[in-house]
């Protein structure tokens, strides 16, 4: 199957083609999955890009090795991959117990050009959120990231985390409350009041 024709294929079909030795499927799956895995690992690991890249490489390696025995219909590829990624991240976090940057350490915007200010403001907000996420217990952090940043539905998150949907709702609600409390004092500082 040519690479261009693969943009509409489901990930499960691509994985089956990969398992049958289709190199174009290998490239298509890598291009599709790597950015999502990297972003998820990056957020779970407190914005540590090098660690996130290591986790991405390891998670995808596990997927390639599982491809030959993959049973279609059992699990979505992305669901399986989010679960593996989160587990790898949690293992690393527990091993290192490294604290994320403190909220007060986040640099202030310095450039005063409008677009640059806007960009810096957005980057500062993302960093502030990351720092606040790092303060959450790991399960709450995982649920909030999956629900509100990755945009997954509760049933899929429940599958990834191996819990019920009610538990997902509870984790995200508690996580958001903590985030609100952590970020409440920084709205003006991060330019929130000037947006509306």
């Amino acid at each position, binding site marked *: 199957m040519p690479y261009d024709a693969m943009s509409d294929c489901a990930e499960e079909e691509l994985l089956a083609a*990969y398992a049958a*030795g289709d190199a174009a499927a290998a490239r298509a799956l890598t291009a599709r999955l790597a950015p999502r895995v990297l972003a998820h690992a990056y957020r779970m690991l407190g914005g540590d890009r090098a660690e996130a890249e290591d986790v991405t490489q390891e998670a995808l*390696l596990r997927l390639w090795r599982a491809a030959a025995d993959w049973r279609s219909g059992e699990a979505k590829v992305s669901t399986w991959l989010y679960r593996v990624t989160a587990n790898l991240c949690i293992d690393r976090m527990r091993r290192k117990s490294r604290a994320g940057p403190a909220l007060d350490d986040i640099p202030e915007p310095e450039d005063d050009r409008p677009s640059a200010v806007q960009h810096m403001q957005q980057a500062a*907000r993302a960093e502030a959120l990351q720092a606040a996420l790092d303060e959450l217990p790991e399960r709450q952090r995982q649920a909030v990231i999956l629900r509100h940043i990755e945009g997954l539905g509760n049933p899929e998150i429940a599958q990834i985390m191996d819990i019920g949907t009610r538990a997902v709702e509870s984790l995200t609600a508690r996580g*958001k409350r903590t985030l*609100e409390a952590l970020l409440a004092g920084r709205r003006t500082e991060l330019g929130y009041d000037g947006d509306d």
Partner: protein
Amino acid sequence: MPGAADDLSVFFEAARAEAPVPDGDFMARLTADALAEMPVPAARAPSPGFWMQVRSALGGWAGMTGLAAACAAGIWIGVNPPATLDAYWGDSTNLGEVGVDPLSGFELAMLEE
């Protein structure tokens, strides 16, 4: 004043917009991993050649060896009959004497008609 949920949605949007993008080198490394780990489809076994099929039909090497030995022995006995059989054959090579009639009276009668 917007609610707390709106407050957070601004941060979530910022996080989405600032998502890390894998660079070319990293993607190349991941693709190389994927290709290196890709299962190789089982190669179809080539069909055996003519002599392989003959050998197999005759029972492998053991069958072939036995057949060759039997052929060689038959040819050797034909070319150089063992002396111990002379008593049976006698001095004559007339096959009729040993009861072997290659052409019976019946066949000769048929030829005459």
